[in-house]
């Protein structure tokens, strides 16, 4: 057995020196990305905080009513958000909302086209699968360190880590939705003279829409589950009081901040979730 342990493969060193050289030679790229993202997110947060809390709550209420026509959901949304205000976590909630919004946005903007492309090209999906598995299973802290080095402290490494963690869901679900488009519908589309582009936009994407929307809700949930991790690298939001509570063994604070995260998660999930009664294929 000694021959096996005699010379250790410098796997960790390779990654480390890759990071170092990236940091040395391309740091301006990462700093530029970091600056732009930080600017966008912070301005969004500032805007959300500039608006009166009650207006935002009213906005959520309207959204819930219009999308779901259920007074129960509307009442739940209003009451639970008011509870957050009452507990004093409104500012952190808005910071988290901005982070989750942009994380989900990036995930969808990158993930849906990738899902479509991989559904049309089986070799691409074969190539992507191990990467997706890796991104979902590798402990978050492992890539938290390099993103921290490359992008510096703050909300941006939190955002990047969140995107890495959450993007697999929309890719997989878009792939699933597109490749499960019923053959009969594809043929109907073709037989009436669809161009490949029309086939995608008028047949495949509408057919995959429930699955893509499921990808979005999953993406939001996964992003929310990352807020505490993101707080570790300095992202503002509901994660911070949780981390602080952990450090100071403050049960009260930890519970309240945790409850706020749960409330935000449930509200976003219920509002984004589509009833699947309408569009069931044959």
């Amino acid at each position, binding site marked *: 057995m000694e021959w096996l342990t005699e010379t250790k493969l410098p796997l960790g060193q390779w990654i480390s020196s890759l990071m170092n050289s990236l940091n040395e030679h391309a740091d301006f790229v990462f700093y530029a990305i970091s600056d732009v993202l930080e600017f966008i997110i912070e301005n969004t947060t500032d805007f959300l905080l500039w608006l009166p809390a009650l207006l935002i709550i009213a906005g959520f209420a309207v959204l819930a009513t219009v999308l779901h026509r259920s007074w129960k959901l509307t009442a739940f949304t209003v009451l639970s958000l008011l509870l957050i205000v009452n507990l004093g976590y409104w500012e952190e909630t808005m910071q988290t909302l901005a982070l989750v919004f942009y994380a989900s946005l990036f995930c969808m903007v990158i993930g849906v086209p990738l899902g479509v492309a991989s559904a049309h090209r089986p070799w691409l999906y074969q190539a992507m699968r191990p990467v997706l598995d890796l991104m979902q299973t590798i402990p978050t802290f492992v890539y938290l360190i390099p993103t921290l080095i490359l992008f510096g402290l703050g909300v941006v490494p939190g955002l990047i880590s969140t995107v890495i963690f959450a993007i697999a869901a929309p890719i997989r679900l878009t792939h699933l939705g597109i490749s499960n488009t019923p053959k009969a519908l594809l043929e*109907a589309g073709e037989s009436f003279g669809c161009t490949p582009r029309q086939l995608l936009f*008028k047949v495949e994407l509408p057919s995959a829409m429930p699955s893509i929307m499921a990808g979005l809700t999953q993406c939001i949930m996964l992003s929310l589950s990352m807020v505490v991790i993101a707080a570790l690298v300095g992202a503002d939001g509901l994660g911070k009081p949780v981390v602080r509570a952990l450090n100071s063994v403050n049960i009260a604070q930890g519970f309240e901040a945790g409850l706020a995260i749960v409330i935000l998660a449930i509200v976003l999930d219920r509002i984004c979730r589509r009833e699947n009664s309408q569009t069931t294929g044959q």
Partner: protein
Amino acid sequence: MTNAVEFENIDVIFGDRQAESLRLLDQGRTREQIADATNNVLGVANVSIDVPEGEICVLMGLSGSGKSSLLRCVNGLNSVSRGSLRVRAGNDMIDVTTCDSTTLRNLRRKNVAMVFQQFGLFPWRTVEDNVGFGLELDGMGPTERRDVVREKLALVGLDQWAHKYAHELSGGMQQRVGLARAFATDAPILLMDEPFSALDPLIRNRLQDELLDLQEKLNKTILFVSHDLDEAMKLGNSIAIMEGGYVVQHGTPEDIALRPANGYVADFVAHMNPVNILRGRAIMHRVTKDQRNSSGIIAIEDEGMRITVDNGTVQAVHSAEIGDLKLIAYDGTLPTDLDGTDNSVVFVAQDDVLLKDLIDMRSITQNPVILTREGKISGTLGRKEFFDSLT
């Protein structure tokens, strides 16, 4: 007569070893042997059929006989391995086996429409938007589209349902939407892939009737796939019966019913109900051409009947047993004042009358039915012809 679709020596093979499979096919190997040797599936072998404009041609056979595979070649959903398949587009014939994708797409948008077995409606679109799908692809604006869609929905009797979703409709109504969608582009050629097979028999029958009514108005060229000979006989101007990828017989419904080409066809025919398909002229005893234009007496010896004709028009009928018979012109319904048997009458009917109606007539009188075409006698239908047709 001009052809709308011409199949010429069409072979279709599914799989990636086309050349090898075609060689085996040319050596006369069967579908099973080809599958064993190359893992490829023989879909269609050496089919040559012409479909004239305005005709309903039914491709008929058991599942796996290649009928759907052949149909789907017409709009390029299946690709042809060898042979030439020409489809009419205006004054041109386009060979879909060699044309480029833009030409094929235009053919699909303007000349060939399709109706599917499982309807193939888009569940996220309303009835109206489903019907307008082909027009939308072709870039027609929404207001113009709405008018066309309304017109086509009215055609199939669904104008009240424009804003429903497909799944809110019954199966029969969904297939009417499928029909309206196919009519919407005004394509002169219609491909129907077992369109009524998923429906229950009553609805199926009704839709068949509606299709025939619409065909009177629209005069499309229809290629219709069916596994039901009764349906084929009812709808088809011609029927191509397929087995194992080959067309084993192509002819009129009467040809198929009366002169099946082989045991496979005969098997089908044995299981169908002939009374709704066979017409008098297919089973009658024909009078000669001279008799048809003569004046005088035509005798039917074995029934003991003498028919007096004047330049082909039936004047009187005399029976050896009963004497002079009363002539009744059959116009689609039986006279109500006759009940039970009455051997003192004789029916005169058009020779395209269905066997079903002839049976009704025979239930009243034992006398032969006299058949005419354009007012002149064309044949007679006695006991012998009856039993021959039913066995």
